[in-house]
């Protein structure tokens, strides 16, 4: 274990090393900060893919070194267009006349810093963030593996100790016997190990242990029936919370908007995904394979950037054409294959496989069409007779999502972190203090308030205001 974690630290250090190097150069560091603050909303930070704005990689080359014009474009693009600069006008038209925000406050050296950061990200001299993610993934795997090894270690140790004890016992017995022989009162026959093992005492003890063990296991397993701690089903879309909540730091409640106001946290509708994915068309891990599923479910045509009209009556063949065309276009772009050239068979297989994946994830016995809700697999299932309100816990109790759902921001595939058993609920209600301060509602608990004032009480737990009673959850 120790060596493992040491190794890991070293590994991380090595990973971070390029960053440390980069920090030495002032302008790129400043450029990175400025880029994040001003540009990242619209421009992809890998500098290679288009977002709301074009990919910035090679921007200076495209402006043919006309840095002055480029600088004034960055400060106020509309002025450059108004001046009639040919490249600027073409660019504006190419991007459907979407206006770039003006940044009149940026100084020349600041713009230079940003451009330096852009080119360093583009040519790869600044390390991309992908590797760090892998590191995080390794961490989890190592942790989980360590736990298993630990048990094995204990078992081996126990075995060795047991064996030692046996040898020692045998040695002591032999020595005792030798002593008796020496003293001349040795018994006629010596009890063998088999005699001891088949003695009533030992058999009785073994049977007793077996019954206790079997009973314990049965009860424990019976209690766990229908509980699904650790349940991690495959989902129709390889949606990664690690990417969205971990790396992108999107607030949980941006998508799960029911949590603050409803009993349900609410699985977001596909149109919530489209808020961002109308711009982010390719994923970092799966490219078009997963994000296209969103488009297919809401009926969005990424080729023309429009929603397909009257989708319910569009034939499935033409729907297939839309999305295979999109996948192909993106495939060509990634692999720098020009439009019009024949695709290799292997490439066509990739495209077909991707399409088949989309169809199989979005359809089932009840839902034949791609268009329609995404059939997510429900992970957290409470029994029907248990009432749970997210709003009570999130908005009033101010409980962090992670308290019950675990480190979701690190999960590529979500699993059920907590047992969701009644004992688990009850235990938390015993330990958690109510947020008495600042909520006038709780003023009706006059005695508690008085005790807190008199310093005879520190806080009030959920249990003390009736949080363990049946009809707080069962009605």
């Amino acid at each position, binding site marked *: 274990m120790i060596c493992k974690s040491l190794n890991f630290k070293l590994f991380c250090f090595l990973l971070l090393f390029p960053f440390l190097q980069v920090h030495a150069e002032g302008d790129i560091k400043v450029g990175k900060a400025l880029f994040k603050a001003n540009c990242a909303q619209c421009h992809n930070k890998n500098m290679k893919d288009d977002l709301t704005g074009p990919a910035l990689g090679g921007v200076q080359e495209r402006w043919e070194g006309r840095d002055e014009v480029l600088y004034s474009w960055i400060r106020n693009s509309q002025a450059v267009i108004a001046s009639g600069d040919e490249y600027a006008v073409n660019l504006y038209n190419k991007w459907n006349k979407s206006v770039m925000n003006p940044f009149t406050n940026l100084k020349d050296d600041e713009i230079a810093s940003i451009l330096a950061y852009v080119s360093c990200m583009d040519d790869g001299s600044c390390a991309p963030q992908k590797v760090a993610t892998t590191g995080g993934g390794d961490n989890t795997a190592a942790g989980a593996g360590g736990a298993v090894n630990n048990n094995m270690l204990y078992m081996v140790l126990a075995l060795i100790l047991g064996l030692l004890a046996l040898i020692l016992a045998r040695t002591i017995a032999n020595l005792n016997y030798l002593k008796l022989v020496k003293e001349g009162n040795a018994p006629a026959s010596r009890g063998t190990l088999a005699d001891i093992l088949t003695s009533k005492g030992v058999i009785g003890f073994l049977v007793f242990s077996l019954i206790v063990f079997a009973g314990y296991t049965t009860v424990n397993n019976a209690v766990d*029936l*229908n509980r*699904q701690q650790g349940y991690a*089903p495959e989902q129709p879309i390889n949606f990664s919370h690690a990417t969205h909540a971990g790396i992108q730091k999107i607030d949980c409640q941006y998508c799960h*908007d*029911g949590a603050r*106001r*409803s*009993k*349900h946290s*609410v*699985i*977001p*509708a*596909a*149109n*919530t995904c489209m808020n961002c994915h109308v711009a982010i068309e390719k994923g970092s891990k799966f490219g078009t394979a997963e994000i296209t599923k969103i488009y297919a*479910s*809401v009926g969005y045509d990424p080729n023309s950037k429009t929603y397909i009209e009257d989708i319910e009556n569009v034939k499935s063949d033409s729907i297939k054409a839309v999305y295979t065309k999109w996948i192909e276009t993106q495939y060509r772009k990634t692999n720098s294959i020009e439009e019009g050239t024949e695709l290799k068979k292997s490439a066509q297989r990739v495209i077909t496989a991707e399409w088949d994946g989309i169809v199989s994830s979005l359809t089932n016995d009840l839902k034949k069409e791609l*268009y*329609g*809700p*995404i*059939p*997510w*697999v*429900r992970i957290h*299932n409470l*029994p*029907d*007779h248990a*009432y749970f*309100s997210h*709003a*009570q816990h999130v*908005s*009033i109790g101010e409980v962090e999502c992670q308290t019950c759902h675990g480190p979701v921001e690190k999960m590529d595939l979500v699993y059920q972190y907590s047992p969701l058993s009644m004992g688990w609920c009850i235990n938390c209600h015993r330990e958690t203090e109510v947020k008495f301060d*600042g*909520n*006038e*509602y709780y*003023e*009706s*608990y*006059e*005695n*508690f308030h008085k005790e807190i004032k008199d310093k005879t009480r520190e806080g009030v737990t959920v249990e003390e*205001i*009736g949080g363990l*009673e*049946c*009809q*707080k959850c*069962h*009605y």
Partner: protein
Amino acid sequence: MKNQLDNWVGISDKNNEPEVQELAQSEFVGLPIAETLSSESLGEKVTANRRDFLKYLGFGVGAAAIASCETPVRRAIPYVSKPDTIVPGVASYYASTFVSGGDACPILVKTREGRPIKIEGNPMSKMTGGGTSARAQASVLSLYDVNRFKSASTSADGAFTASTWEAIDKAMAANLSAGSNIRILCNTVMSPTTKKVFAEFQAAYPNTKVVTYDPVSCSAMLQANEANFGMKVVPNYHFDKAQTIVSFGADFLGTWISPVEFAKDYIKNRKIKDASHAKMSWHVQVESGMSMTGSNADNRIMIRPSEQGVAIAALLSALGGGGNGSGLNAKAAAAMATVANELKASQGKALVISNSNNKAEQIMINKINNILGSYGNTIDFGSYSMQRQGIDSEAQALLAEMESGSVDALLVWNANPVYDLPNGGAFAKAMAKVKTRVSFAGSNDETTALCNYSTPTNHFLESWGDVEAKKGSFSLVQPTITPLFDTRQGETSLLTWAKSAVTDYYDYLKASWATMAGSAGFLSGSSFWDEAVHNGVYDAGTSSSVPAFTDASGGSITTPNTSGVEIQFYESIGIGSGIYANNPWLQELPDPVMRTTWGNYLAVPIKWDEAAGRFKGYNGSGTKTVKGIADLMNVTLKGEAQKYSVVPQFGQADSTASIAVGYGRSVVGRAGSGIGNNVYPWMQIDSDGNTQYWAKGAEISGIVGEDEKFPCVQYHHTFGVTGEYDGETVNVDEVDIVPVGKGYQGAITDRSIVYHDTVGNIDGLVAKIKKKRDFANHLNSKTLYPYDEYTAELYSQGHHWGMHIDLNACIGCGACTVSCMAENNVPVVGAGEVSRHHEMTWLRIDRYYYGEAENPNVIYQPVMCQHCDNAPCENVCPVNATNHSSEGLNQMAYNRCVGTRYCANNCPFKVRRFNWLDFTTADLFGANQNSINGEEPAYYADNLTRMVLNPDVTVRSRGVIEKCSFCVQRIQQGKLTAKAEGRRLKDADVKTACQTACTVGAITFGDMNNHKGEMYKATESPLVYRMLEEVNVQSSVYYQAKVNNKKEFKNA
């Protein structure tokens, strides 16, 4: 008349029969297993022996093991594009209007994930003030009726062939021509825009006439008002301004014209706000059978149905307005003198109404009101009512036209004449002579079955529309779900066939409303429209006006009968004229007075034999009622015999019987078919063409058999009433058990269940309650474990939930019962199960009689779990499935319950219900869903019906106990709202389902620890008591005693 007992619930009880005593002690009557095994016919079916048992056991264990191996994969299906307004898990409310014929109620529709699950009243409505009726509450279930038409269809000989709307439109274009004689037949239409659509259709087809009739009509009143005031309308009645109310047969709290509005107004002068200055209006009901309104009256005057005319005439003559009241029975005639004096004394504050469908009688009513100065005070023509517009003779004229063969096309719009016309049979025959017969009905009925085109309209929860229930008070109907089936709004169909420029009804309606915007002071039509849709109601404001009264005479009043049996037909609270017959919630809602469910029954009078101290004559089915058995009798009228289960009814006039209309539907869905008999064919039509809701010359046979599944909840879940014994007031349950040791708890104690007195003696009542409560507290303090000492800390902070029920306000309408069923997923069990005491309602309304046995007064007492702070049910649960919360709730954890039913046995209030069968098909194992006695599948078995279930409340499976939870899901939601807003909890945050449904505000719920809240204030009245306070259960439900304003009539 000597009072034998102080309060009683029925004959067996009044006779103090041993079976009733036994019943009051045993929670479970007729256990199904024992019943099954003892029943010979069923015994043959029960073939399971030991071997089978072992086989099933083996299979069961194996199946359970296999089932537990793999957890099924569940999907989480999100929206593709989530609508902004919908948050899964959060309910949205939309303002709309419940409308069905002449019934209208502005409502808020609660939807979850896009499906309507609950109806609440719209508090912005000035008409109802947020109240609802049982029918409005139940209407959400009819949306998910499995019998609804799935598409337009053509039909021949009652068999439907699915068609498309294009094909139907084409066929209509071919069948309807400008010259066609078209008749649109409808019940009252209150929508101004629908009427516009009719007019546009008439413009396209000039020979179109709209014929309006109502199954239970105010036809004669419309005619009388036309004669006296020149206005063929029902005026607006102000019950809140009336101090003396005399009703001749009008069930204005239950079914007459606008009961929700009337009940809200009526109760304003009935509630006791301050016991030291108590004042009440005086309400006299003159009727034959006991109606719900009659049961709430201070005094009832019993007459035969044929005497109604002379009774009105007697009052008119006593007021000096002429009229000949001879022929009225002596007792009633004497009472009329007192009534007249009282009416005179409250000149300008009096109101006299009648349900009579005789024009001459209604003209006399108008005269009486004119003498009393009611017009302009308690009656107003400015904001007249649109709720009854039908003229009976118009339907008869149409029938004659059809018989002559001059009608080319009949469009049946929201009407069922084949079933509910007195001569429905003739109508059915005449329909054959009409070439094109179109029905707009949403599901099949007797008339639709004879049509050749079915063009089903949307359910009102899927529709756009508007309602003008009273002149100037508008409300909007807004869809809350996309049409479940391929149905089309009726107005769109008519506009399409009329080749209108605008066929989309939403656009049409909006345009129609835009014309109102200017007069409403809005700048633009769209802002006016948005506000109207949001509020659901719009009050245009009308000034009160009364046209000049012109004396008129017309027709003659009914000649009273002196011999033979007369039958009175009445509309029931739930089923109404028959249009709600397929709603199982309403079928299972007990009739407030008779306490019967699932059918119409023959109510016959009771005669008390002074000398014998018992009832004489037909003495009821006796103790058989207790076992769910009733006697059957044949009733013969017009040569047609019908068999009825008989209910002996207190307050039923001599030689009369009462039967409810609306039952005996032949073409209807599962819930309504084969339930009761149709009495419409027994009705007569008078010389003005008006249908008479009574019949003379009925022959009632002797007992001809037994109804073995008599679903009457009369003796179900009773818990003992007080009576006289050796000059002492005692608990009739216990008099035989403990005949000695007076005054000890659990022995002969006068249990506190209901208290009542007259308003004149309210001080005595206050003193009595105080004495009883002090005594109860004294008893409760003599315990080894003094309650107060042990619980001083318990509810000293946080919440302590409590409920207050004003028995003076409760009119017994049952809206709360249905609201509770909808909110809490309470199952429907069906007639057979009800007869076995297995009804599941969490909230029952007990009905007690007091006073004279022949003509008693009534108390309604809603009883739900009392959430005892010292609960006897909690102590006996072996698995602690029921226990107490720190907020005073008696909690029930269904998944912990193993079904020992000890708790139900130990509950003194009998409010716990056991799931004998898998009523909601919640059980995971299909084998458990079979019913042991071969009953039909449960009402919630269909996935469509299950869409009405409240997702926040557990659906209980077989074998567990359930009971009122004080709507804990609403409590938790209310607390969450307060926490989220960072403020203390307000009364408005938590309102139980029964409370919001109540029109009269009889139920108050809240936190008793909040000393500024309504609940705390309500408990401070000296009229407040707790049920069975002396048994030290420390219940959390407080009742306010019943006070009436009964006056003595001078003897003749």
